[in-house]
């Protein structure tokens, strides 16, 4: 069975400090990977997606970057946090192939508070 693990579960960080969030998918080779951001009480906004190692597409510019160093790992990071980065970050995966009917499988998320 496939599992998706996000770390850390929660972070409290100062404005201007760096950030690194991670996501690992086990049991599925070459998945499509996604990062979503959710403001408190809000909807989901897609940030990045990746269809293969080393390739990441940016969907929204929020002074964040993403990398896929391994087939099963997706990293979200920034060198300088802003207050507006606070929220809930969700990693997700789907099967490859690009079908519009693909299901997304979400991790449990990371709650980020920037002070």
């Amino acid at each position, binding site marked *: 069975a496939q599992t998706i693990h996000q770390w850390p579960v929660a972070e409290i960080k100062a404005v201007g400090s760096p950030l690194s969030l991670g996501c690992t998918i086990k049991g599925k080779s070459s998945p499509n990977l*996604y990062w979503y951001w959710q403001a408190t009480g809000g*909807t*989901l906004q897609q940030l990045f997606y990746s269809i293969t190692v080393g390739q990441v597409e940016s969907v929204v510019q929020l002074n964040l970057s993403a990398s896929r160093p391994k087939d099963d790992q997706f990293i979200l990071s920034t060198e300088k946090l802003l207050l507006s980065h606070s929220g809930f970050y969700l990693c*997700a995966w*789907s099967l490859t*192939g690009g079908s*519009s*009917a693909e299901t997304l499988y*979400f991790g449990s*998320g990371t709650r980020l508070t920037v002070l």
Partner: protein
Amino acid sequence: AQSVTQPDARVTVSEGASLQLRCKYSYSGTPYLFWYVQYPRQGLQLLLKYYSGDPVVQGVNGFEAEFSKSNSSFHLRKASVHWSDSAVYFCVLSAQGGSAKLIFGEGTKLTVSS
């Protein structure tokens, strides 16, 4: 332009009552539609999806949804809700481009009162 509208930000129903959560979409092509549920402090889970065939699709935990092309709608229903159904429900549209082009509605927060 593609969009998803969930007109009800909050819905409260009594346990055992029936439920309908509304979803309207805007898309000129053939839509692929999903309902996801988010329990407190958790990620999202798929309830059901529609992409062709019978306009009424069955999902998990007794949920179903009905697709209407004429009304551009994909409403979610359940005959009898349980307190554990309290969560936020998202209607999602997938246009051409697969999962890289998902459009989420604003979500409807469902509270089931006992």
